[in-house]
């Protein structure tokens, strides 16, 4: 089996939808979900395989190739799983409240999945740029999909920041090609150290600005909360669960390759820490649930950023744990918010006071506790590993900042939990149908499973962290061909 199928099949699906829509109303919906399920099985079947290079047209280092190793397989599986969960949720959601022009919605979902996987797998920097753009464009359209003024406003903001980001990324790629003469990540990684210091710093800064917009790092994250507020909660689950994770991995994967000695490590750590603390402070005074969770996403992403920036195996393992926990928790929360919004037509923070849905309440609380990093929930082990790594490196200011940020996070999460269990008038009871119950239970079960028995996956994640940091064997694999 070959890893290019992860990208080729969603593209094929996208191109073929006009034919599929001839098979009736549900044809596209079911084909899309079936395709994603197939990709999930494909991903599972690849676990345990050796690192594998997929050649496109011509062997590396001349051409484009895809590298499937442990860490990229982790992300591929995660994204496919998230998309499957989302699709199954949506299959039931669409019966009552379908999106307009649904075929287009399904195409966008599959394109988003394909581009996120492409960002993770590709070993060619210009190809990374192409996937960067595909993911961006699908996300812009998904943001503006509802065509309300706020959705369009968010779409315009997202698109403008995205195109500025891509300009800086193109600039960096141009300078890399001019100075190194190759686009293959391995060759660039070999020669990057030998560049003159000026140009090296310059390329790194351009690269940081280009990806900084997308990995939502301070001060380039001003657009994030608007985008989350403008788009629907349904789509936000994808932004938080898939898109930003793909960009994060691509950024740090390339960073580790180019700068294995970690020259900007301290700078990036403090950048992440600043974004984390700012996001958590701003989250305190938000009154819209989508915005609250947007800022909470920013905080978590900044924590992952900080952990990745340390460039130590423990921290990376922790970051991968946090990515897993955060993706699951955020998809649970945003899908639950979608159900709430559909029933109560509002996502103001006060809606939680009148929430009448015991099942959803429990699910949301579990997801929040996991985000907080309470023991026995999935988020704990990741945060613990990250804290341990910083303690080992004796960077105590960061330790303090992470703990303060967690406390701030606890303040507003417990405020929300308090709202949910407050005594008072309740609205009509929300009926959660069977499919949704199944999805929510599955995801919360995963949260608890990872939380209580982290060892089922920690070995795999430790290997992944090793692979991610090990630039030498990555280079050797590609250069040898």
């Amino acid at each position: 089996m070959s890893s290019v199928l992860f990208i080729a099949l969603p593209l094929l699906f996208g191109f073929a939808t006009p034919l599929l829509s001839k098979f009736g109303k549900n044809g596209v919906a079911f084909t899309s979900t079936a395709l994603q399920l197939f990709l999930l099985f494909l991903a599972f079947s690849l676990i345990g395989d050796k690192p594998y290079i997929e050649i496109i047209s011509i062997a590396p280092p001349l051409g484009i190739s895809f590298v499937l190793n442990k860490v990229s397989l982790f992300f591929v599986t995660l994204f496919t799983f998230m998309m499957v969960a989302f699709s199954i949720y949506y299959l039931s959601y669409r019966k009552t409240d379908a999106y307009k022009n649904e075929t287009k919605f399904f195409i966008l979902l599959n394109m988003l999945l394909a581009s996120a996987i492409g960002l993770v797998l590709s070993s060619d920097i210009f190809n990374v740029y192409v996937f960067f753009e595909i993911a961006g464009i699908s996300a812009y359209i998904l943001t503006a999909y509802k065509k309300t003024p706020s959705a369009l406003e968010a779409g315009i903001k997202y698109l403008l920041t995205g195109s500025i980001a891509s300009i800086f990324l193109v600039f960096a790629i141009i300078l890399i090609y001019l100075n190194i003469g190759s686009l293959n990540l391995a060759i660039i990684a070999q020669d990057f150290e030998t560049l003159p210091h000026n140009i090296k710093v310059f390329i790194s800064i351009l690269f940081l600005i280009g990806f900084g917009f997308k990995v939502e790092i301070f001060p380039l994250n001003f657009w994030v909360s608007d985008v989350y507020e403008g788009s629907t909660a349904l789509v936000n689950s994808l932004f938080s669960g898939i898109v930003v994770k793909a960009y994060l991995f691509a950024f740090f994967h390339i960073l580790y390759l180019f700068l294995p000695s970690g020259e900007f490590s301290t700078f990036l750590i403090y950048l992440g820490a600043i974004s984390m603390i700012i996001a958590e402070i701003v989250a305190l005074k938000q009154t819209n649930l989508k915005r609250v969770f947007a800022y909470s996403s920013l905080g978590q992403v900044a924590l992952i950023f900080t952990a990745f920036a340390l460039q130590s195996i423990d921290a990376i393992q922790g970051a991968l744990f946090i990515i897993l926990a955060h993706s699951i928790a955020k998809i649970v929360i945003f899908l639950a918010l979608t159900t709430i919004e559909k029933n109560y037509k509002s996502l103001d923070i006060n809606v939680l006071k009148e929430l009448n849905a015991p099942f959803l309440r429990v699910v949301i609380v579990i997801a929040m506790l996991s985000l907080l990093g309470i023991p026995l929930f999935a988020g704990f082990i990741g945060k613990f590993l990250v804290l341990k790594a910083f303690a080992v490196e004796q960077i105590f200011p960061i330790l303090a900042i992470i703990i303060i940020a967690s406390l701030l996070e606890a303040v507003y999460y417990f405020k929300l939990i308090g709202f949910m269990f407050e005594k008072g008038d309740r609205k009509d009871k929300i009926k959660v149908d069977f499919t949704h119950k199944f999805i929510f239970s599955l995801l919360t079960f995963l949260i608890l499973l990872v939380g209580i028995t982290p060892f089922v996956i920690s070995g795999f994640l430790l290997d992944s962290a090793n692979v991610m940091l090990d630039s030498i064997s990555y280079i050797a694999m590609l250069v040898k061909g």
Partner: protein
Amino acid sequence: MNLKRDISTSTFSGFALSASLIITFLNVLLNNIPVDIKRVGDELLKLNGSEGVANAVTTVVVYFRGFDTLGEIAVLFIASLGIGLMLDSNIRCNLKAESNFMLKTASQLLFPIIILFGIYVMVYGHLSPGGGFQGGVIIASGVLLLLISHKEFEVPHSVITLIETFAGISYVLIGLIGLVVLDKFLGNFLPNNISDMGLLLSGGIIPIIYIIVGIKVGSEMSMITQNLIKRSDDV
């Protein structure tokens, strides 16, 4: 230019900010003007001889970096989808003024020539400058001419969608056939003799893919222009 009159603080600060940024850029770039080094392009040029395609850029675009082109097609596809979604209206064309006789006749006269030129650029993409993207956009510009000159003309939506679907599917399928036959996606599985270089039928799958790209780009750009123009007339 009346710059003096409306120069304001924001203009000035914008000017200062961008100027300082650019001076930094220039400082770095001018001190490190890249010298001629060995580039991947030189090796690709050498390899290009064995593909039997006269235009090296076409080989690089369609074959050596073929996946970028697939991604690019996907970008155009999604963008055209998004534009269709945004400007989706059932309001019929209703031009403010009937276009005059001269414009109508001239566009009828020019349309076949533009289409022919577009097809030429598309089909000869592997032998001369040009190719699928350029040819496709030229065809779309011919359609644009008809759209603005003929009130009643509309791009036949269903036919175009069918053509586009066909082109998209065959692009990915050609890639998958390469995967099956040569064990590499988009591998060149058709005969491509060097002796055929310069002939229309040379280069294996490369001209075929470029024509498919041209069809796809042409139909997508026609739909984009149609969407933009259709909407503009109901203002």
